[in-house]
Structures are given as structure tokens and as C-alpha cells.
């Protein structure tokens, strides 16, 4: 082997050894995490009215936003790095939520309105017993398994057939949208056995703890934060790896990747399934904090809104979607309480302006600003 070849492979190995985040980024991440982790504590420790008190509402809202951020992160993995725009991530989110919701429904026990062994909606349907697909859902571990498996297996099967047929671009987006729409119609039916229109709600306890107790809510919040952090690190690891490089290549020139000798199917399928599982986990974390899951989560609007979180934050940046989910949902919360009738105008405007003027999102804007400042100092 000649020297140049050796040198190249060394360079390549060095590139792969790049740290996950720069030390600055690690510090920033640690600070933000610490601040976020502190908030529920402030809520628990200080009584209402104290100047350091954080309202339970704010904590719940942030917990919800972190679930959205996790979903946005999952979407960024496929859209930002593999160029696959999914309009069906609302489906995976909802499936994860429903899987966890099944456990939470069974945890209600006989405390429902009708004191029956089965949930109230089954009482309405005159069902004496749980249908077969509810088997074992009284066990928490099994529900958690379902949270991972149901979105994962569905995504794997759907992705396998779609990517094998080389469906891409807008066709893929439209197909995922159709799938989600079909699933929504299915879940809206009462006899599907998932509560129909109303979905699951009125949860009482999780793992024996009262689900409305402040301590339980704080724990859920911390779990969400930990999962989000873990997911961010994992996503970073995936995109920094060799696999991530191939994915980016697939995004930019799929045919060329194929001509070079890579089969994109496996790469796309891996990241697609991973993304779906992440999104399912986000849904599973969302349900106990919000206290309801219904087929509305699968609506076309929800999935597209997820996409705009990613676009607003900056696609292909991982941290961007988290910022974007927070920004857009923060705006939504503010608008719907102050100018409810103007929220849709604002959201529509975000869609248009971000696509027209901010193709790299907020993160891209920040990067441009930072580079221009560096240039000025030079």
C-alpha cells in the first residue's frame, strides 16, 4: 500500500474520531440542562407566592414542550440528515402515546365512572372484556415495550416497502400523510377499541403513584428531560458516525451514492425506524403529562406542524428542532391566550417566512451572525 492511501485513511479515521460536541457545546448543554432540571424543584420547594416559585402550569408546559422537542428531533434525523420529509410522524407520536395510554387506562382499575373492570368507553360499547390486543397491557414493562415496538415495526415495514420501491421526495411525504390519515379514521371508530373520538383520558395513577401529584409530575418532567438529552446525544452520535455521513450523501445525491456502490435502503431504513421509535417515546412521555390522547394527534395538521418546528429551528442541526419546537409552541401558547384569532395567521406566516427567508432556521441565522461577527473582528 502506498503512503498517500495510508494518509487518507488516517485522515478519515481522525474525522470519525471527532468529539460528539465541542467542549463549549458540552458546557452550554450542561447549563441548559441544569436550569431546566431545577425548575420543577423550584415548584416543589418554594410555596406559591414566593418570588422563586415556578408555577405548576409552567412546569407542565415545559414538560409538554420537551416531548414536542423530542418528536422534532426525531423528525430532524430523517428530514435534516436523510432528506426524507415525513408527514406521518404524528402517527408514530400518537401510537407511542396510545401504547402508554393502554397501560394508564388499566391502571385506573375500577375507579372509573362506572366502577367497571374495563374502561368507561368499553362500558359504553357493552364490552365485558378487553380485546386481545390489550393483553398484558396491565404490565408497565410490556406497555413500554409496545411504545418502542409498535411505531418501530410499523415504520420498519412501511419504510422497507417504500424505500425498496425508491419512493422519495414529495411522493413519500404524501404517502405518509395518507397512512396517517387512514390511521386517524381507524382510531376515530369506536369499535377499534381505543376509545374512539375521546381517546384515553382520566388517568389516575402511574406505577402506583398519583398521576396528578406534584412529585409525580416533577419525576415525569425529569424523565422527559433525561430522555431528550439522551436522544440528542444519540442522534448526534448517529449523524457523526460513518453511517451518518452516508445518510447525508443519500440526502444530497441518492443516485450517486448508489452508483458508488452503497445500497441506500439499509441506511434510510435504520434512521427512519430510529426516528419513529424516538417519536413514539415522545408520545409516551407526552400522554401522562397532558393527561389525554385522542385521534386528533394523528391529524394532518399536527404532523405538518412538527415539520415547521424543525424548519423554524433549522433542519439538519439537531439542536435547531429543539429550539424550534420551543419557539413555535411558546408563540402558540402566547398567541392563543392573548390574540387567539391571530394565531393561525402567525403560524401561516411562520411557515411562509421560514421557507422563504430562513432556509437554515434560527440556528442558521445564529451561525451566520456569528461568522459575520468573527469576520469583523478579524
Amino acid at each position, binding site marked *: 500500500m502506498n503512503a498517500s492511501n495510508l494518509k487518507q485513511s488516517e485522515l478519515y479515521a481522525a474525522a470519525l474520531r471527532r468529539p460528539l460536541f465541542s467542549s463549549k457545546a458540552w458546557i452550554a448543554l450542561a447549563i441548559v440542562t441544569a436550569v431546566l432540571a431545577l425548575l420543577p424543584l423550584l415548584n416543589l420547594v418554594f410555596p406559591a407566592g414566593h418570588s422563586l416559585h415556578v408555577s405548576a402550569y409552567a412546569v407542565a408546559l415545559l414538560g409538554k414542550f420537551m416531548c414536542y422537542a423530542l418528536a422534532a428531533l426525531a423528525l430532524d434525523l430523517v428530514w435534516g440528515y436523510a432528506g426524507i420529509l415525513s408527514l406521518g410522524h404524528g402517527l408514530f407520536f400518537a401510537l407511542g402515546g396510545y401504547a402508554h395510554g393502554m397501560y394508564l387506562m388499566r391502571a385506573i382499575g375500577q375507579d372509573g365512572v362506572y366502577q367497571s373492570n374495563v374502561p368507561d368507553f368499553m362500558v359504553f360499547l357493552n364490552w365485558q372484556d378487553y380485546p386481545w390486543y390489550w393483553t398484558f397491557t396491565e404490565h408497565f414493562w410490556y406497555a413500554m415495550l409496545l411504545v418502542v415496538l409498535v411505531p418501530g415495526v410499523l415504520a420498519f415495514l412501511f419504510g422497507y416497502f417504500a424505500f425498496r*420501491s425508491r419512493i422519495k*421526495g414529495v*411522493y413519500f411525504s404524501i404517502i405518509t*400523510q*395518507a397512512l396517517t390519515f387512514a390511521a386517524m379514521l*381507524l382510531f376515530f371508530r369506536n369499535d377499534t377499541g381505543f376509545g374512539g373520538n375521546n381517546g384515553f383520558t382520566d388517568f389516575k395513577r402511574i406505577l402506583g403513584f398519583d398521576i396528578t401529584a406534584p412529585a409525580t409530575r416533577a419525576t415525569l418532567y425529569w424523565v422527559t428531560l433525561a430522555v431528550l438529552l439522551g436522544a440528542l446525544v444519540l442522534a448526534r452520535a448517529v449523524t457523526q458516525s460513518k453511517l451518518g455521513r452516508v445518510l447525508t450523501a443519500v440526502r444530497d445525491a441518492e443516485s450517486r451514492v448508489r452508483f458508488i456502490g452503497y445500497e441506500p435502503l439499509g441506511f434510510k431504513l435504520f434512521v427512519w425506524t430510529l426516528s419513529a421509535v424516538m417519536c413514539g417515546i415522545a408520545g409516551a412521555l407526552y400522554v401522562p403529562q397532558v393527561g389525554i390522547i385522542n385521534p386528533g394527534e394523528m391529524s394532518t395538521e399536527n404532523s405538518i406542524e412538527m415539520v415547521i418546528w424543525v424548519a423554524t429551528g433549522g433542519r439538519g442541526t439537531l439542536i435547531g428542532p429543539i429550539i424550534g419546537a420551543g419557539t413555535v409552541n411558546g408563540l402558540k401558547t402566547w398567541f392563543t391566550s392573548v390574540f387567539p384569532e391571530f394565531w393561525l395567521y402567525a403560524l*401561516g406566516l411562520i411557515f411562509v417566512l421560514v*421557507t*422563504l427567508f430562513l432556509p437554515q432556521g434560527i440556528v442558521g441565522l445564529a451561525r451566520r451572525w456569528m461568522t459575520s461577527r468573527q469576520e469583523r473582528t478579524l
Partner: protein
Amino acid sequence: MRRSALLIRFLLSLALVWMAGAWVPAASAAGLDPALLAPLAGDDTDAKLEAIARLGTESSAQAAVVLDALGNDRMYVTPEAQLLVDTRQGIVDAATGAAIGAMPAQADSVSVNNRLRRAIAAALSASRLHAQDPAQRLAAARGLQRGADVTVLPTLEKALSDEQDAEVKEALTVTIATLQLKSDSASLRTQAAYVLGETGNAAFRPTLHALLQQDAQGAYAEPDAQVRAAATAALHRIERHVAIVEWVGNLFYGVSLGSVLLLAALGLAITFGLMGVINMAHGELLMIGAYVTYAVQALFRAWFPQWLDAYVIAAMPVAFVATALVGMALERTVIRWLYGRPLETLLATWGISLMLMQAVRTLFGAQNVEVSNPSWMSGGVTVLGSLVLSYNRIAIIVFAMLVVMFVWALLNHTRLGLFVRAITQNRRMADCVGVPTGRVDMLAFGLGAGIAGLAGVALSQLGNVGPDLGRGYIVDSFMVVVLGGVGQLAGTVVAALGLGAVTKFLEPYSGAVMAKIAILVLIVLFVQKRPQGLFAPRGRSAE
């Protein structure tokens, strides 16, 4: 003394009724024989029944008046046994129809029990067989098909021999057959079963089934084997006819749904096919078209109420122009900056759709607005005996065909169409040879939007018009475009009609929602097999 007078009067009236039996109705248009009516004033139910049955056979129009009054408790009897009828316009004599100034104070209403009421209903139908209006005669003949008494059979046969109208004749034949089924002659019964089979009317199935019933001893309800065979054959005929009607009905509703899908998707196919623009605001353009229809309707109500029926026609060009302008404005301001980035157009147009929806909510309110069908669109035409094809659905099918022809002609026989096709095939080459691509893009987008506006006019005639109208169609119209393949008018037409027909044929088995789910899953599977749709472009343009 009073009692004996009543008795005498009663006997007298009985005799008169007996005489009336021999008395042939002389088709007198004016009056009735008072003797015929006399029992009605009495207390003997059997006599009343007979009188009512006789009134049914009367060809006089006054008989119907009397029966009607009797059934509605508007018949009165004076102490002098004169029968009076309170037609709502005034009091008349029951027999002659001559007007009486006022109701005598002592007049009692003639009481009627349920047994009499049934007889009155049958008799009334029988008497209406002689009505002037063929529609009334037809209704009477049909009314007698259910539960008429054998006693009306002679009346029916007479009516049949007098009848001129073909439709009424047919109804009478069927009515006679239902009665003949109970006759004593086996050959008549066979004949009757055959006639009932000919009608193909599902309403006769229970009657025919009853003939084939076996009792506990294994004896058939119908003793004659030949009649049973005829009944079985008749049942088969009916089943087949019902199946055909169902099939034609499904086909019609399928084509009509397909036309709606076609209208909704056609504009999308143009913009998507030409520019690769995923226009998520397409549904909102449909909605704007429907709201324009609403506005035009309101305008006609206010200014030209005499031409209100024509407002739909007037709404078409207005909706086309209005939505085309909206579309062109969108193209100039937003979409043209995003060519070549279809996913970004998807997001931007989604944002536009949100704003358009909210704008309509602000302008017209969040509630649905009322758009009424013009009178010429209500009602329908009946085919195959029982299938009603409503005029508004027929109008939509015709309209969809016209719009397709319009688009086809525009694309294939105008200079703009030539440019559009050139750009679809090879944008850069078209640009090189001098096609003003920017202008053509704008016009083509305007055309797509304008067609959405036309579709909106059609949709406003079918369902609710509200700010959410477009949302319901966006997934469906994308399905049509994906299924049909890009840039192919024929593909869009076939895909839309096919989807509509398949949906309607699935619905009876699976219910509407499951049919929709099945269709969506089928499309997802289909696209795995043929990612480029039914009519895929071949060669270089394929990638």
C-alpha cells in the same frame, strides 16, 4: 216512537243499498245516489262497510270527496238524516255536492271506528282510480298494491280496461296480480306470480316468500307446485333486478364521487405536473370557490331575485376568475421563489392555506354558510323502477366532463397549452427556445387555481360550505394525483373515476370509513408497485 222511526229508516236504507248494488254507476260526474250514502248516517257498521266499499267503486268524483270527509271526521248528519260534508271551503250536501249556507246547529258528526277507517282508505284508493289526474290514478293503483281487499278486484279490472295511460296500466296490472295471488285458480296465481316477478320490485319479496313457506307438517302455503315454481322464478327475477339496480346505483354514485374527486384534483394535477409544486393551499382554493358561489348567491338574492335559479351559472366565471387571481398572486409572491424545492413549497403553501382559512373565518365567520341548490337541481330522475338519480349529482358529472374537455382543449389547442406542455417536458429547453417560462408558470398556476374555483362551485352544491371545506379534500386529491401519475390528464381522469367507483362498491360491504381506510391502504400498496402512478412518463423525463 223515535226508536221505531229510526228502525224503519234503517230498514229502508238497507233496501236502498241492496238496490244500489244492482244500480250500475252511470259515470255521473255530478252527484251520488242519496240511497247509497244513507247507511253512513246509521249505526250498523256492516252496512256502513258495504256502503263504503260501494263508494269506492263509484266513478263519481263526489265519492272521493265523501270518503275523504268520512275518513277525516268532517262528515255530519242532520236530524233529518241529511248527510253534510265540511269541505274546508264550505258546507256541501254529501250526495249532490250542492253548497249549504251554514252547518245546522243540531248536526252530529258521523263517528268512524278503526275497522271503518281501513275500509275507507281502501275505498278511497279505489275511487281515486277514476281521478282525472293520471298521477293520482297512479298513486291510487300503487297504494292498493299493499293490503287491498279482494273485493276491489272487479273495480281494478274495470279501471284497467278503461285506462289509457301506460304507466298507470302497468301499476294496475301489478295491483291486480297481488290480488290474484289469493285467487282460487292456480293458473291465475301462476300468472300473478309471473307478473310480480316482472316488476323486479323488492317490495313483493315477502309476498312471494310467503307462498314458499312450509308449515310444521311440511305442507307448503301454496299447494300447487306449478305456482310455487313460478314464485321461485319470480323471486329469482326480483333478486337479479335488485342486484342490477344496486350495481347501477353504485356505479352512478361512484362516477359522481369520482367526478367530485376529479374536479378537486384536476387543478392540482396541473400545478403539480407542470411545476412540481405541492400546493397544500389547493383545498383552500376550492373553499374560496365555494364562498364565491355563496357571495354570488347573496348578490342575486338582493338584486335579481327573479333570476335566482341562474346564480350557479353566473358563479362559475366569477369563481374561476377570483381563484385564478388568488392563485396568480400566490405564485408571484411566494411560490416562484421556491421552484425546484418541492418540499419547501409544501410547507409554504400549507402556511398560506392556514392564513386563507383564517381570513375566511374572519370575513364570513366560522360557521357554515348556506348555499342552496337552484330549483332545477333538486329532485331526480327515477330509473329501473326504484333508483333515483338526483339532478345535482347528474349536473356535477356533466360539469366535470365539461371542465375536463375545457382543460384538454386548453392544453392541446392553444398557444398557452403548447407552452405548458413544453415546460412540463423540458423546462430548460423550453426556456432556451424562447418560451416565457415565468409568465407561463404564473398563468398555469392561475389556471390550476381557477379550476379549483370551478370545483368549489360544484362542491358548494353538494355539501356544507365552511372554512374547513378544503381540508376534507386535500388528502383525497393528492391521492388522485399520485395514483394517476404526474402531468397526465388521462391518468387523473382514470384515477379519480376509478377511486370513486371502487369506494362506492366497497362501501356496502365495509361501511364508509373502512372503505376509505381500505382505499388509502390500497393506494399506499399500489404506489409501492408503481411509484410513478398509473400513467408514468417514460424515458428521460422519468427521473
